[in-house]
């Protein structure tokens, strides 16, 4: 029997094979047009989560028994040519194990909840395919031993997230918001890819152990200079800001609430929104090298927490309010990481993810819950505006505008980046039209006459 199939290797393989098999099964069924039943899909998801969770616990138990804090699982080189290799390496350490266990546990809970929540919905299979992609992405990201593997998982989480925001695809609003989320994610992914390539370039490999020191997390020491750490760290910080909705990208978070409640819970309450913080923890030895980088992380985290705490108070729907409450905590977690803490943010993530998942899942029955609470108390609880009394009316209204406009970050990105870029390309398009019209001597674009929608085949005849 191969060595990898003994002890921790077997647990590690199960952890990776289960979500991958789920993606393969659901994906292939969709591709060939075979409709799997709801109960079968539900059982497959539960099986994957339970077996994955047990394997994860088995790995934890083995590590505790052996007294080891670092178990690498090397599956060889996925691709190898001279001067380049892509290693399939996964690591089990005090950071990856809790995050992986959290992923399996919460995905299992959400999977069970969704089976009833989306019963007989037309997009049931579509939801669970995206969900399986998400689970695979989370497991890959949590256990990644190289930055390339982490990037692959990171991308899977991103694409499944955008597709689930646009889940109710017959309406234009969720689709527009899905595109918004995807756009921010692509910027974040681009920053991460550049950081990955820069790390690969610096060390000749993407292995975290090579760049961040071989010791078990968080004891590693980064083998880079101050400047290198700052450059790579800032790129990673852009990736983190995009993925965890830190300022200035925080505008996508309330938009993402257009998706089904279970996906909102697992993505934006529990796991996906914490991925940025996880990445910062993973590369924390880089922060130790550069004090400027640590300072940038603290500032970004605190700024996000302040803006999110303000915005939370001005939201008019429960999911948006919860999303900003979630973001406030994520901001604090990021600040904690910047301050040099390691285990506290990890515990903060786990506790916050579990609480927020529960809150999101109860969000649809929150009025019922309040009524029960009021009936039990006999009075209606009134919130006291103690801080508000200290502020001048002018400042209060300014803060209210700031909160309603979510810190003006969305407007800033739209007015100063997105719109000018689109205007520039539209202008280039009009130049091209003039050029081809001149060359051909007639109007060169017959596509201009197209109606906005194609109509039906009968209209074409």
């Amino acid at each position, binding site marked *: 029997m191969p060595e990898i199939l003994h002890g921790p290797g077997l647990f590690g393989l199960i952890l990776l094979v289960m979500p991958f098999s789920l993606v393969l099964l659901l994906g292939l069924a969709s591709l060939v047009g075979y409709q799997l039943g709801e109960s079968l899909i539900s059982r497959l998801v539960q099986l994957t989560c339970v077996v994955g969770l047990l394997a994860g616990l088995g790995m934890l138990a083995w590590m505790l028994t052996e007294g080891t804090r670092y178990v690498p699982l090397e599956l060889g080189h996925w691709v190898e040519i001279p001067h380049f290799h892509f290693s399939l390496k996964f690591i089990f350490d005090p950071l990856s194990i809790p995050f992986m266990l959290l992923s399996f546990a919460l995905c299992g809970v959400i999977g069970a909840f969704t089976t009833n929540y989306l019963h007989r919905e037309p997009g049931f299979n579509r939801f669970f395919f995206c969900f399986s992609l998400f689970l695979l992405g989370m497991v890959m990201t949590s256990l990644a031993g190289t930055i390339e593997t982490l990037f*692959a998982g990171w991308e899977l989480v991103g694409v499944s997230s955008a597709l689930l925001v646009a889940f109710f695809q017959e309406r234009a609003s969720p*689709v527009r918001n899905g*595109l918004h989320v995807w*756009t921010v994610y692509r910027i974040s*992914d681009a920053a991460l890819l550049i950081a990955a*390539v820069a790390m*690969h370039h610096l060390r000749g490999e993407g292995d975290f152990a090579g760049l961040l020191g071989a010791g078990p997390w968080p004891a590693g020491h980064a083998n880079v200079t101050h400047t290198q750490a700052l450059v790579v760290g800032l790129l990673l910080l852009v990736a983190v800001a995009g993925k965890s909705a830190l300022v200035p990208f925080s505008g996508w978070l309330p938009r993402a609430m257009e998706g089904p409640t279970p996906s909102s819970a697992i993505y934006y309450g529990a796991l996906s929104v914490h991925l940025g913080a996880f990445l910062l923890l993973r590369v924390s030895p880089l922060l130790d090298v550069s004090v400027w980088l640590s300072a940038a992380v603290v500032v970004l985290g605190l700024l996000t927490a302040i803006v999110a705490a303000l915005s939370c108070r001005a939201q008019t729907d429960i999911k948006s309010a919860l999303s900003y409450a979630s973001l406030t905590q994520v901001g604090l977690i990021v600040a904690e990481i910047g301050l040099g803490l390691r285990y506290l943010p990890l515990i903060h993530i786990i506790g916050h993810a579990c609480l927020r998942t529960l809150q999101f899942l109860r969000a649809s029955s929150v009025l019922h819950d309040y009524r029960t609470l009021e009936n039990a108390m006999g009075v209606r609880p009134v919130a006291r505006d103690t801080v508000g009394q200290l502020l001048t009316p002018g400042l209060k209204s300014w803060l209210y505008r700031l909160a309603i406009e979510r810190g003006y970050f969305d407007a800033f990105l739209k007015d100063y980046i997105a719109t000018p870029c689109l205007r520039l390309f539209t202008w280039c398009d009009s130049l091209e039209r003039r050029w081809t019209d001149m060359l*051909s001597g007639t109007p060169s674009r017959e596509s201009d006459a197209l109606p906005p929608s194609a109509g039906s085949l009968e209209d074409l005849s």
Partner: protein
Amino acid sequence: MIDLHLPWLELAIVLPLIGAFCVWRLRDVEKARKWCLFFTCAAFATCLGAWQDFILVHASVAGDPWSLSSAMLGWDFFIIDELNAPLLPLASLLYLLTVLATLRTKMRRFSFTWMLITEAIVLATLSCKQPWGVIALLALGAIPPYFELLARKKPTRVYVLHMVLFVALMVLGWSLVQWQASQPEHSPWIFAPLVVAILIRSGIAPLHCWMTDLFEHASFGTALLFTTPMLGAYAAVRLLLPIAPDSVMRIIGMMALFTALYAAGMALVQREARRFFCYVLLSHSALVLVGLDTVRPIGLTGALCVWLSVGLSLAGFGLTLRLLEARHGRLSLTGYHGLYEHTPLLAICFFLTGMASVGFPGTLGFLGTELLVEGAVASYPIVGVAVVLSAALNGIALVKAYFLLFTGTRHVSSVPLEVSRREKVAVLTLAALILGGGLYPQPGVASRHHAAIELLEERGVVFPDDPIHATAERQGDIHDAAAQKEWFME
């Protein structure tokens, strides 16, 4: 030169020509499609045979035995080497899948005879290494789309002006290069006509407008088959890469990089599906030229991988769009079409092929993009950043198009719009190749690395550390231009 076991290359070129003759005589379009399918299948099988035979003979270059062209010319006109070995089956597969996915609604407007003739020309071009042969075949290949535009009574001036300029500059450029080889002093300016010709054929901005015009006026199938084999990049590899100085390659690389970014941005503002596809294709095909500019094994390997992945994924993407067009007519991108419920398979394939083209993990394009960025960063870091940005913009444009076409209020139709079995075979074949190549990339990447090393050796780059190219890193400007030219003129 080592011979293959059978004359695969000439068979692959002759079979479509025979097919064209047979189909030309048929009036019944359904029968014509079946014959066309048979001959494209045969050509694909022959190309696959050539590739496998090439692997079996363990040669860096091989030719046909009992070759007619060799007997007539006295030298091997058609050859197979590390570069074109997988490109031949890829090109023939694109033709096969296009025929397979041609619906009855399109058959009367799409000429199978011209398609088979074009296939023969494309396969001949890809099998040819002789500079004048490549130039002649590229010029010949530009003719069929012109006849189609004429037959469809569409404006031809944009296309004709660009193609005439391309052919003229190509002939002038190569003549100057040959003339310079006999001169004692060499100037990089002598490459200018050849470079401009290659930029035109590759659709590098601002010389790309013929391509958007072709997509606007020709049938989608013709435009797709004319552009996706990326013969402009092939001309760059065969004519320029072995002899052009680094400064010339850098100019091409910089212009290609600008095009990759510009076309990705333009894809975001397009209001019609064909034009959108054209810009996405322009952006990706420019990336191949960016990789050539690095002139290093990793970057060049990345470029050759991207060539294969983009060729396959964007051909699949284009075919999916073509299938949608066959059902709904030209597709505007100014409103939501709501087509998902009618054609979920096409929606999945659209998304999959689109994501593969931007290098999404698990698909064929992932490692190609990774290698390209790695190679670009090693040459000039800013190039790597620009490549990543163009991939990000393309990713946004592709998902935007997906949402516009497949989401929104459900499209109502009184006729069934489901995917037929033939179409299913075509799109599933592409999906299998994209996912299979993505999950098991080692053979493909290793083969492209060998090709990259061969090309760099032709350029005069030496790998002194060991004889099997283990170091594979360029050792400065060892490239002896005069010696290369001498070799190249032989």
